[in-house]
């Protein structure tokens, strides 16, 4: 569960003032709004990449307002995937577990399981250079899900995916949420995406969030 209670975030001149949002555990939320309305800023505040000037952020009932990103247990999939260019796909999928000093055998098992599930087994030995938009997103999602986070934040994950693979990605995102029961907050400006996937739609405009019925 994610609860934002009157948070204020500032980035340079831009300020999001006293914004609130509540997303229940296991829900799939879509955060919509025009380009430049502050969607990414809000996402970064939830992740812990941007300090908040006021209000509180609770994740699973725990106050994480000033916690480090690593301590929040959030899986983050940025818009462009932001894959690590010097690592193979296998290394990227196992990265979070390696940082947590999990045994090698366990990491291998989890990576194989994720790769099979996301249909990227054939990419494991490769580096990200030359991957398609859809493949990059699958890898980024696998990397974020590897440590079983309670929350998954997706920043416009389908913006670099072509129309033909969009349907597959919808299926994949639905499957991810159903099978892992992760709480998903999906940032998008595409209404179709929100309607296809979300249980709850939040619209951010003029510095306010309102919940809309689908």
């Amino acid at each position, binding site marked *: 569960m994610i609860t934002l209670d009157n948070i204020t975030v500032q980035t340079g001149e831009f300020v999001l003032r006293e914004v609130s949002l509540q997303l229940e555990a296991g829900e799939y939320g879509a955060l919509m709004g025009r380009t430049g309305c502050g969607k990414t800023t809000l996402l970064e505040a939830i992740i*812990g990449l941007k300090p908040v000037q006021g209000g509180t952020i609770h994740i699973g009932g725990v106050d994480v307002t000033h916690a480090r990103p690593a301590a929040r247990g959030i899986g983050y999939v940025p818009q*462009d995937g*932001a*894959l690590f*260019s010097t690592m193979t796909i296998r290394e990227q999928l196992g990265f*979070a577990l390696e940082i947590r000093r999990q045994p090698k055998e366990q990491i291998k098992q989890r990576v194989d399981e994720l790769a099979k599930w996301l249909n990227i087994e054939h990419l494991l030995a490769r580096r990200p250079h030359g991957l398609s938009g859809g493949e990059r997103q699958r890898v980024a999602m696998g*990397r*974020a899900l590897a440590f079983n986070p309670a929350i998954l934040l997706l920043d416009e994950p389908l913006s670099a995916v072509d129309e033909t693979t969009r349907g597959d990605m919808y299926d994949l995102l639905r499957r991810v949420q159903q099978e892992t029961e992760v709480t998903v907050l999906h940032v998008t400006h595409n209404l179709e995406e929100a309607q296809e996937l979300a249980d709850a739609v939040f619209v951010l405009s003029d510095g306010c969030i309102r919940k809309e019925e689908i």
Partner: protein
Amino acid sequence: MTPTHNNHTLGGGLSDKLFFLCMGIIGGTYVLLIVLLLTADVAYMLKGASWHEIVFENPMVQALGKPEIRHSITLSLISCSLSALLSLFVAVPIGWLLSRFRFRGRNVLDAILDIPIVLPPLVVGLSLLILFQFWPFTMQVPFLGKSLNELVVYQVPAVILAQFSVAAAFAVRTMKATFDEINPRCEQVALTLGCSRMQAFMRVALPEAGRGMLTAFTLAWARALGEFGPLLIFAGATRNKTEVLSTTVFLEMSIGDLEAAVAVSLIMVLAAVTVLLITRIWGAKDVMV
């Protein structure tokens, strides 16, 4: 691109050709100058020489035979490598901080880092010399019985410090440009995956900056090899002591041995080209993976 058949495009085609010709001629002139400079050095050495003389009595071979020049080559290779490594050591954190964070005084810091680039080299040497007249450099070092001033000025460490003072500024510029080009999102993702700042830097940012580090090292190395002004003032040009290749050229010129000066210059060209080639090949390999 397929040309379309109308008068406007045909006219455009001719002007395009002229444009490319002009650009080629202007750019080519400079490339020609570089090639001619090196060719002139080689031609000067080979002038009127027989094959036997070229192979066995070549001024470069003779220069390599002189112990003082061998000492100068060794010191150059060691001091350039050390100063390039030191440059990289300071350039990586400065480049990363400047690229990733906006903080108070950032512009002042940025300007300070450009000072060694814009300052006349002689002034850098003189400033180093003057700096070492002050405390703590004049203080006795425990167990050595000498001050830092005595241990460094006109000694081998002065060679490295003089080279480092200028070369590091170039390495910093390269590293900042390198980190500017690396997506900061990767480090942010690493933080969400459980990394501390240091882990994200060491495991994600640094490997991504590998090629830039290689370029910065090469640039610093080449810059250190060519350093002369600060060395002359701060380290002196003492044969078999603080003499490096650039000072050898100066010393040979000052005793009127132009042939030896040209020969040593060509050794410097070879050294610089070799380092450039090695790093290019390593860099290319890195990209191909």
